[in-house]
């Protein structure tokens, strides 16, 4: 099942996404959470912690800055550029980072 959470910035998408992801994972499903925002902070709302969230963002920036020859495949994105969060939610940052500073 692919679920997209959309809305005006600041409306509560990230909080909504995080509770949905954690709840479905607690119920036993394998959940991948994708942060597609150009100011990624889904990790914090998921409970991954700000240090780990920042690490994922930095990895993504390195990727965008061309340290990888090709754009990652889905599997690479999830396994190499993702992080395991609480309840087994796998988090990956998929956006091109527009703003290096946390929002």
């Amino acid at each position: 099942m692919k679920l997209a959470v959309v809305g005006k910035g600041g409306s509560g998408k990230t909080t909504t996404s995080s509770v949905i992801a954690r709840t479905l994972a607690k119920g036993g499903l394998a959940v991948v959470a994708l942060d597609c925002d150009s100011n990624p902070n889904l990790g914090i709302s998921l409970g991954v912690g700000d240090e780990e969230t920042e690490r994922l963002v930095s990895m993504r920036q390195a990727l965008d800055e061309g340290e990888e020859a090709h754009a990652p495949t889905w599997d690479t994105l999830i396994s190499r550029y993702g992080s395991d969060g609480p309840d087994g939610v796998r988090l990956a940052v998929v956006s091109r980072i527009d703003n290096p500073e946390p929002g």
Partner: protein
Amino acid sequence: MLGSADFDEQDVVVADFEAGVGTLTRLGEEHVDTVVIVAEATPKSLEVGARAAFLADQKAVGRIVVVANRIRGPEDLERVRAAFPPGTEVVGVPHDPKIVEADRKGVAPIDLDPDAPAVKALIALAATLLPHSN
């Protein structure tokens, strides 16, 4: 990207899209089963929300659910309902100081207080999103 994904190992993908409707506009081959539109009872938020609902409908997304967020009373909920086509599924999530507190502390709202009203409302919504309930 979503379209090329191999979902054998993942049961669910929850994508927190870029703010606005840009990503939704560009949705093509990537099929999304459910779109959750988060909107507050303000004209700007509802304008984006209504545009998102229109786009999701055009793209023949399976299910559209509106989260009426930070609701302070029945008028807020009604204002949100009125912005979407009749019959649109709208779930109200109350304004909740615990969410504000979680944001301030940089912790997951579901960890800070799973019984907070807004968290409970979102947990209840998540239960209706389970794949087998589609």
